[in-house]
């Protein structure tokens, strides 16, 4: 039997997967997985802010994540610390500050597990609307910056020299990252969002020959992960986020069979 909440979860998950598919490919291509993690961790701060100011969660997470991204870019210019150290610094400190703030907000009941790992029960009609409208906007913007973003992913100087605008594309892409985290946080939880971005994309890499194909397989992989994960979650009463990510891992392992074959063929 499919319950209403399950249909809602499915709709939300499908909406998220349609967007994480293409964005995840760029995360993998541009080596941004730890960057995505940092933004996701900072989302906790956004959630606490939303609760204490009685503000929309997705919007609040989006603002905080975008802010953290700006701080990161600024720190990169000002210090000589390596990028991964800065990312770690921001990821863990924003997570820690978020948890400390939750401690102060003792008058509000938090479902911390739900925040960290996602909660299908929490998805309401409002969330679905935000996911689908937000998702559509993200995809439209991505299409708009596609040429510059993709060309500069291949080679920054080539894109810059031949009249594209890689810096603008990069800045907009950063905002899109914050946006996808904001709309998918309820679904997958903030510890696992990056998994939703990179695992289907990594799976897709193993079985594709062209960028378009990789994006297509990444979307399909994400959709399958959501469907398999949610059914498992319903059946075994497991948290939705981990179930979805585990399903995507399963697909990734399957894709390794294909890559082994093609390596064999080459030799």
């Amino acid at each position, binding site marked *: 039997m499919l319950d209403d909440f399950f249909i809602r979860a499915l709709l939300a998950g499908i909406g998220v997967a349609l967007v994480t598919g293409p964005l995840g490919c760029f995360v*993998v*291509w541009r*080596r941004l997985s730890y960057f995505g993690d940092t933004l996701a961790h900072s989302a906790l701060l956004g959630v606490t802010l939303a609760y204490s100011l009685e503000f929309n969660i997705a919007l609040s997470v989006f603002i905080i994540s975008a802010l953290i991204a700006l701080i990161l870019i600024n720190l990169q210019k000002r210090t000589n610390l390596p990028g991964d150290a800065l990312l770690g610094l921001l990821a863990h400190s924003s997570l820690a500050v978020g948890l400390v703030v939750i401690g102060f907000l003792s008058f509000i009941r938090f479902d911390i597990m739900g925040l960290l790992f996602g909660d299908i029960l929490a998805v309401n009609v409002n969330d679905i609307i935000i996911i689908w409208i937000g998702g559509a906007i993200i995809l439209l913007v991505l299409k708009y910056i596609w*040429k510059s973003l*993709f*060309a500069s*992913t*291949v*080679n920054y*100087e*080539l*894109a*810059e*020299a*031949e*009249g*594209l605008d890689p810096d603008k594309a990069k800045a907009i892409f950063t905002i899109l990252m914050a946006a996808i985290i904001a709309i998918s946080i309820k679904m997958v939880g903030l510890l696992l969002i990056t998994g939703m971005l990179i695992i289907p994309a990594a799976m897709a*890499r193993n079985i*594709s*020959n*062209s*960028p*378009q*194909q*990789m994006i297509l397989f990444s979307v399909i992989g994400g959709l399958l992960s959501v469907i398999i994960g949610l059914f498992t979650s319903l059946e075994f009463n497991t948290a939705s986020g981990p179930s979805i990510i585990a399903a995507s891992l399963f697909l990734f392992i399957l894709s390794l069979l294909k890559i082994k074959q093609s390596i064999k063929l080459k030799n």
Partner: protein
Amino acid sequence: MSFENKILVKLKDAGFRFNEKWLVQGVSLQVEKGKIVTLIGPNGSGKSTTAKIALGIYKKIEGEVEKYTNKIGYVPQKISIDWTLPLRVKDFMLLTDHLDDRTISEALSLTGVTHLKDKNLGDLSGGEFQRVLLARAISKKPELLVLDEPVQGVDFTGEIALYELIKKISEDLNCGILLISHDLHTVMSATDHVVCLNGHVCCSGSPIDVAKNMEYKALFGEQASQTLSIYEHKHDHIHTSEGKIKKN
């Protein structure tokens, strides 16, 4: 033709500093339609930097750059494609422009690599990749071509053919070319104007003028100078008193 002397890019006293160190300084040059300007100079003399200044890749520069065209084809000195990005030659050809399939095939056939069209970029050899890079740059029929060591890693016969091709392209498309090369032989046979760099402009002018220049001799040695003189006899043009080149 009235457009023959159209200036495509002009550097006025341009320079670029990175980490408090000048990579290149005080460079003035211009590339005109239908002309080939070649930058020569030892390693680290600022050739690639000068090209990047001309292309607008470096923005915080000294001096001025004036660019009069947006139709630019660029072959960078170094480019590496990550394994995580599955990219076939034909995808790569479409990187910065919309081209139809025929245009792509034509450009690839000019550099002799049509057969690589469906291959993955990661599977190409250095020389093959270089030919694809050149094909991509010319496929969009640019007004300005900037070629940074375009034939590196290409076999000897291929090298000569590609330089012939570059010369032919500048005539066919009537585009301006800013070429970086350290192969003095080949460079000199096709170039209209040579700029010799060593952190600044050592000397510049027609190939023959540069070859006779003392600073050039000091930089490259007497033998290099003789190499150029030998070339003089193969030229099909004469040099006017202002150092301009006139075709016979």
